[in-house]
């Protein structure tokens, strides 16, 4: 395996969980809900996915469990913010704290236990090709899923009636209600989708990235995903660019550090953030386009009059 091949493979591994979590949060935010609990949903996905895979021996079952764990966490958030009308910011932060704590508790007996690694896909002949084989045809199922999910979400959001309704609910919930749409129901669905995606991102961490359980293993990726959504101005295609750019600079930083180049490590570890912010600011120079895609109602509670 050449060095370049190794670097590319690591970049994909680093970018995939960010992409999964961020595309879910993008849908949630498009519907006008700010869920700051991505980190908590992700870590719950990681621990539940790991535990299920370890106990059943099946990585696929682990993925399913992680998806449901993230979904369940998001439903708690949806119930608090949409039904009980609590503050989205406070509830999201609480969800993160809850997820970090609860995952530590669940994961206690799984620390140091051997994990189940999600096997890469193997397609005869093409996967054996030098260089392109492992990169294009030798990834695991979650990588392909994340890469297909982005255009799929983009298509649904920007080209279909369902996506139009989500955008409308996020853009002006009073108008959407007046037109007869069930704002709360739409938001429940979008929050649930976001939770499931965060759960999958967690599964990727504990089943593919490092197939073991380490407390706090999401290490801030949920927050990066949240930032990526804003910098990508709520557009899926920009999210893809942002997530992979972040992953690339991050891995390159580690690689350069490994070579012993005399750059302070603090600078190198802040570089992914700086580069991603700079790049996404440059792509979002078009103010009108940005404003059009910004969900105007984000974070605002909505209760229909009675």
């Amino acid at each position, binding site marked *: 395996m050449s060095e370049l091949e190794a670097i590319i493979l690591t970049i994909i591994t680093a970018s995939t969980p960010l992409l999964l979590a961020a595309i879910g949060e993008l849908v949630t935010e498009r519907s006008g809900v700010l869920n700051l609990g991505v980190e908590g949903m992700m870590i719950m996905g990681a621990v539940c996915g790991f535990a299920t895979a370890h106990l059943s021996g099946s990585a696929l079952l682990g993925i399913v469990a992680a998806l449901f764990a993230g979904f369940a966490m998001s439903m708690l958030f949806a119930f608090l913010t949409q039904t009980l009308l609590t503050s989205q910011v406070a509830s999201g932060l609480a969800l993160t704290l809850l997820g970090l704590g609860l995952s530590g508790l669940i994961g206690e007996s799984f620390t140091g236990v051997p994990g189940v690694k999600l096997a890469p896909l193997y397609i005869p002949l093409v996967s054996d090709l030098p260089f392109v084989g492992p990169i294009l045809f030798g990834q695991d199922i979650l990588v392909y899923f994340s890469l297909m999910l982005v255009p799929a979400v983009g298509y649904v959001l920007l080209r279909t009636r369902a996506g139009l309704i989500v955008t409308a609910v996020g853009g*002006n919930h009073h*108008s959407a209600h*007046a037109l007869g749409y069930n704002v709360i129901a739409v938001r429940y669905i979008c929050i649930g989708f976001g939770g499931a995606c965060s759960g999958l991102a967690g599964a990727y961490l504990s089943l593919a990235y490092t197939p073991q359980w380490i407390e706090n293993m999401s290490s801030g990726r949920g927050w990066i995903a949240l930032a990526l959504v804003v910098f990508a101005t709520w557009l899926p295609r920009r999210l893809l660019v942002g997530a992979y750019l972040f992953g690339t600079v991050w891995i390159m930083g580690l690689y350069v550090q490994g070579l012993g180049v005399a750059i302070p490590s603090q600078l190198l570890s802040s570089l992914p953030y700086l580069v991603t912010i700079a790049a996404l600011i440059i792509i979002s120079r078009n103010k009108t386009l940005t*404003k059009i895609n910004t969900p105007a109602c984000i974070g605002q509670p909505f209760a229909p009059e009675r």
Partner: protein
Amino acid sequence: MEQVDADSSPIDGTENASEFLLEARNIVKVFGPLRANDNVTLTLKSGEIHALLGENGAGKSTLVKIIYGALQPTSGSLLWNGAPVRIANPAAARAMGISMVFQHFSLFDALTVTENIALALPGNRNMTVLADSIATVSREYGLPLRPDALIADLSVGERQRIEIVRCLLQEPRLLIMDEPTAVLTPQEADRLFITLKRLAAEGCGILYISHRLDEVKRICHEATILRHGKFVSTVKPQEETATSLARLMVGGEVAVVKSGETAKSGPPLLELIDLTLPTDDPFGVTLKNIDLRVRSGEIVAIAGVAGNGQSEMFDAISGETLGNEKGAIKLAGEACGKENITERRHRNVAFVSEERLGHGAVPNFSLSENIVLTHHATGDGVVRKGLINRSAATEVIGRVTKVFDVRKNTADPEARSLSGGNLQKFVVGREIALKPKVLVINQPTWGVDAGAAARIRQALIDLARGGSAVLMISQDLEEIYEIADRIAVISRGELSPAYPADEISLERIGLLMAGTQDELGDNGELARLG
């Protein structure tokens, strides 16, 4: 578009058991301690334009929301073609054939015309086909629309057209219109009336909410009047005068504003000299080469359709948005284009913004605290050496309350607990209490009942006659003609010269509002007294 079919016979309700399309019987709606609707009854036939009249807070919106399914009545019943119905939500209302054009449009700024309309229609539609039928219907009814335009880029009149076309595509049996002409130029309003008459001739019932009595007399067959949530009567507007209708609405005589002597021209106290201000907001309006002088003793009004640069102009004068030209704004002869709000207030200039709650007053603050917020820099000794002098603030409240008849339930309530009219009287009174040399006021009587509006207008006149310069931005042409000495019109960020109010016709103002002054030839130089 004027060709309304004379022979198109109304689709009357012959097949139906009832002669009425809609009956609302004994509707009661209670919000906490408030009876917003108290035993209200309204009947409407197919093909009838029925006005719903009343002051702000009379319960018109509540009744309409009940008919549209957005609210459920506490008691009372609705009959549709004679059969009792329960309208659970707006979707159910639309399925029955009830459409509504909202006062504060229910459009999505970030979406296109076609997308906005698609959202209101059932089922999955092909956007290209829909765009074609939008073009067809809008042409047929003389309501031109570009299907692919973004809402944020459209004028208020165009936005209303979208709402109407959206309703027409649903082939409504009953169309509810909430204050539709409040945001239109007189010419746009005329076009709307043609559309409404045509719809009525085709058999659609129209429930028309307005407080403009001349319009109601012009187009409505029946009028139901509400006062304080109660049903007053149903009358034929053609048989009434504007005064008798107003008396029914208010329940007494309406105060008449006395304008006093017309202004003698004093020195200019507020000058805008070639004021140009680009906007950062992609949906905002750029101000272009605005020239205006407001003299001591006069009221100058800025007319115009909302969203043509009024708020940008107000922000530029008040100092909320700072320009780059020091000399573009002069207060009492001194250039202050780069001064902030407090520095301008120090020059004895007062500002009343359009949004009374949230901008003009902090909702959760008491009135005395709100006094401190604008008086801290000027007179009244409200702040001494950095400390708040509560008794001085309370004294100002006492004065304002007395002069402006602000009705409140405790001595110093939270701003948000006041009704719209009372809060507006307080916000205006607070600034006038400072006896400013210059007062700039945006939408002085928006959403305020007739009594409060008359008092505010009288106060503006008295202030001007006392030697101050008053600049009033308003969309209400009746109000402008009532109190302004000179009138300028803003359109797409450009301001026309200011014409003496008795020399400019309503029609001319309408054309200027639409931005078509060139077609008339500009006689501005004659009228410019500056």
